[in-house]
């Protein structure tokens, strides 16, 4: 476990064709956020946040309510303009790119509050997830995968989203993200408002996705469950990364146990 000091800006070399085969993740993280500063109007929320996501790893971002986790994800996706700092994805600086162009490149957010297309059917939501050309090419195979993972969605494919339960809507939100053929999947509050069984169900799906090689960043209220499945964890406090490290190490930290686990 390390206290995070200044992070060196990560390499900004152009994308190489063989990047996906790179084994040295430390040198070539899939996503690197460096010294990100942002906020709303004149209220600064993030004061220089740096983190990296490595290929095939499930990383968790912890932090108490209102600390700025959603703000960070919005800035990473480009929904919120960074005041300073950089977002590098697969070696490319995307700090100034629009959200839709990031999505096309494979950076996909499952947003807080689901943000589904509520006036449309389940299937239409999934189709729209695969809107980009790259994702559209994998439409059939991804649809099968998603339906195999969540058979409930297959049964309800022609129903309107508004007729689904909260748990089903969250399944759909994750599935719509998967339909986008993500290279990294950012998930904001996976289990918020769900029953424990439903939450467990979704966490199991995440484990399976990780085994299939998907790179993920998870923001989650259920700290115990999140740490149990993740490979690495960051803790956001007072607008900065306060702690980061191996989840098992973090679980031994007294501050963490008190603040986030109530032990």
């Amino acid at each position, binding site marked *: 476990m390390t206290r995070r000091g200044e992070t060196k800006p990560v390499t900004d070399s152009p994308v190489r064709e063989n990047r996906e085969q790179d084994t040295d993740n430390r040198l070539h993280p899939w996503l690197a956020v460096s010294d990100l500063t942002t906020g709303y109007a004149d209220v600064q929320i993030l004061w220089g946040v740096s983190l990296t996501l490595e290929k095939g790893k499930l990383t968790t971002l912890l932090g108490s309510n209102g600390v700025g986790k959603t703000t960070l994800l919005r800035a990473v996706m480009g929904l919120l303009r960074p005041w300073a700092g950089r977002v590098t994805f697969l070696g490319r600086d995307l700090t100034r790119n629009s959200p839709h162009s990031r999505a096309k490149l494979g950076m996909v957010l499952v*947003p807080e509050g689901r*943000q589904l*297309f509520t006036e*449309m059917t389940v299937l239409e939501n999934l189709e729209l997830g695969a*809107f980009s050309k790259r994702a559209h090419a994998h439409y059939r195979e991804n649809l099968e995968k998603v339906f195999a993972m969540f058979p409930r969605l297959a049964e309800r494919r022609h129903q309107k989203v508004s007729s689904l339960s909260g748990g089903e809507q969250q399944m759909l939100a994750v599935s719509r993200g998967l339909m986008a053929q993500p290279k990294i999947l950012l998930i904001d509050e996976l289990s918020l408002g769900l029953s424990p069984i439903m939450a467990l169900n979704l966490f199991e799906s995440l484990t399976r996705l990780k085994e299939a090689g998907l790179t993920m960043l998870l923001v989650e209220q259920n700290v115990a469950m999140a740490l149990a499945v993740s490979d690495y964890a960051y803790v956001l406090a007072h607008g900065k990364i306060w702690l980061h490290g191996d989840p098992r190490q973090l679980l031994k930290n007294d501050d963490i146990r008190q603040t986030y686990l109530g032990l």
Partner: protein
Amino acid sequence: MVLNQLLASLTDGLLLGFVYGLAAMGLSLIWGVMCVINLAHGSVIALGMFGTYLLFSQTAWNPYLALLAVAVVGFLTGTAIYGAAVHRVINAPHLSSLLATFAVNMIFIGLGTAIFTTSPRNLDYSLGSLQIGAVIFPVTRLIAAMAAILLTVALYLFLFFSRPGKAIRAVANNRTAAELMGIPTSLVLASSFGLGTMLAAVAGGLIATFFPFTILSGGPYELKSFVICVLGGLGNPLGALLGGLLLGGLEGLIPTFMPVSWVPTVEFVLFVLVLVLRPTGLLGAR
């Protein structure tokens, strides 16, 4: 005899209703997709009339060929209006976009008045008449009604069954989510504005084939379009067409029972009643 009279008035109104519906569809599309009430709607209808008229009278194009050109120019004009006036206020409070489109309206009407004056024009074009039962109609009005039906069905199929159409509905439903799914929302908004403007211009062109007009003639159609949007609800072209038919039918029938000047009164009483009792429209699209 009275029945025949009634039937003739009703058919007359319904035929016009199709075109009202088409005009309203443009307003409804823009309103539904981006929550912008396009106050330049009426002047675009008038520009569609003039576009068709000019191509017909200056270059002797067939008016229906001219309509194709009007459609293309209408689409481009719409995207230009979006880029110049609407995009910068798309996230601002409604008053900003009302003022922006109102400004566009004033520019169009000002230019139109300067260039064409306000003396009425008409397309000297006829395809003869057709007798349906006891009722006789100019063929141009039948064609206009058929064109309206065709465009409604085409728009419906486009919005509900094509990929770009679904992208438009996605942007209407949740713009942030659409952007997150890789949909270029600004482009979709500009195209939707273009499409709405195109429909209004084409409706204007069709009207010009049977009614005289001035640069101010779009105004009444704009008002009717508001009523129709409220009757039919937003987001579904079929709703706009049905709303148009309802309004047209009423307009046909009312004058047989009371003075013509009562038409707008009845229409707007209906407008207020629907707003109060069924704010999602008679079809309840939303």
